């Protein structure tokens, strides 16, 4: 028998796929550098400035990620869905969507399973809509747009997601 721990065995192919996009961008840089070295240098300076401005917000992002990973597990989050009364269900699904992390593809099988166990379509729609609100990324967003804008967008996004959930429930006749 052998014990394998996934972090180490993270899918190598998907890791390589992620490098395709930055690799292509670097190729474009190479081409621009041959045609117009001054413009390529200007582009690189501009990118460096952006990286520099994002260093502190990225540090905060990492700190928030650690806290969320420490206290929340996907199963706990998923267990919020489909529980309680209608209004409580909406609040819990909203909270679950906001605190959920990772790519959406990882969540589909879990949501499918939860729906089989009785979670309402409307609550699943509320959950999916609220994944747009990412507390751990707020430092980056605030650094660009300011806290008033971020609060407003977050507020309306949550309101919009609940509205979508409500309408999904009506249209799917729940």
């Amino acid at each position, binding site marked *: 028998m052998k014990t394998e721990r996934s972090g180490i065995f993270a899918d190598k192919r998907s890791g390589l796929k992620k490098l395709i996009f930055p690799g292509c961008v670097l190729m474009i840089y190479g081409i621009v550098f041959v045609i117009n070295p001054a413009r390529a240098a200007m582009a690189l300076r*501009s990118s460096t400035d952006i990286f520099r401005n994002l260093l502190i917000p990225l540090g905060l992002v990492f700190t928030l990620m650690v806290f969320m990973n420490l206290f929340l597990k996907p199963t706990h989050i998923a267990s919020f869905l489909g529980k309680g009364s209608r209004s409580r269900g909406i609040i819990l699904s909203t909270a679950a969507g906001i605190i959920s992390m990772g790519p959406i593809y990882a969540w589909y*099988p879990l949501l499918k399973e939860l729906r089989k166990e009785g979670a309402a379509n409307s609550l699943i729609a509320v959950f999916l809509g609220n994944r747009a609100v990412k507390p751990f990324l707020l430092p980056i967003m605030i650094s660009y747009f300011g806290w008033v804008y971020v609060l407003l967008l977050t507020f309306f996004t949550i309101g919009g997601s609940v509205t979508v959930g409500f309408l999904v429930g009506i249209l799917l006749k729940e």
Partner: protein
Amino acid sequence: MKIAISAEKPDLAAQVTQRFGISSYLIIVDPETMEIEAIPNPGAAGKQAAGMQAVVIAISKEVDMVLTGYCSPTAMKYLADNGIDVVTGVKGTVAEAVAQYGQQANVNPARSMEKPDFAGAALLPVLKRSGMQLVNLLPVFVGVVLLIGLFNALISKDLLLSIFSGNALLDTLFGSGLGSILAGNPLNSYVIGGELLEQGVSLYAVTAFIAAWVTIGLVQLPAEMAALGKKFALIRTVLSMVLCIAISILTVVTYYAFSVWDL
């Protein structure tokens, strides 16, 4: 402690199956009491995302370890992300596998799955997981920032401003259209949106772009349709598109109203 074992039949005498994701049953065993719970695997038919069904069972039953013949790297990743160890290459019956694991645990107590009794031990894997999550974001994020650099150097403000006219409705529609097609981590939409704003593109267009990027994502639609049904996915996407435009206009109008009050 709970162990999940992939098996052909719902009892301890069943053979351990070689494929975790498409095994007929997952047998959850408490090695101390030998109490078992046999759960039929909905993914046994081997359809799309079949392996994930078994992963969902293992996670929802809060098992500590999975014993199986083979487990795909993707399934293994999700199991480990939830603190579940995976032992592969397991053969024989379920009872033999449990006994063999029990012997190993006795020989090497370090492999026992007892919960850590000090805070630092719990923090280390979390730090590692968070680091991996950030590292996973980085390749695309670095590509996006490099692309923005090129964009800033090669595309003139005049050209951008000729595309985004300043008309609230048209800019919102154009921004949401662009954001709907693109998808990915919201982090990238914030950086692109922020830089577009600095180039003079209207806040309506930028807000619609960000809102659509994070709430719609047309490239994810096939996966959503496969998992949650065509009707659900299409209705949700169309409604999200409409609401996304409303969210953008409401956000910007309210923001400008607040700006007037100099908040």
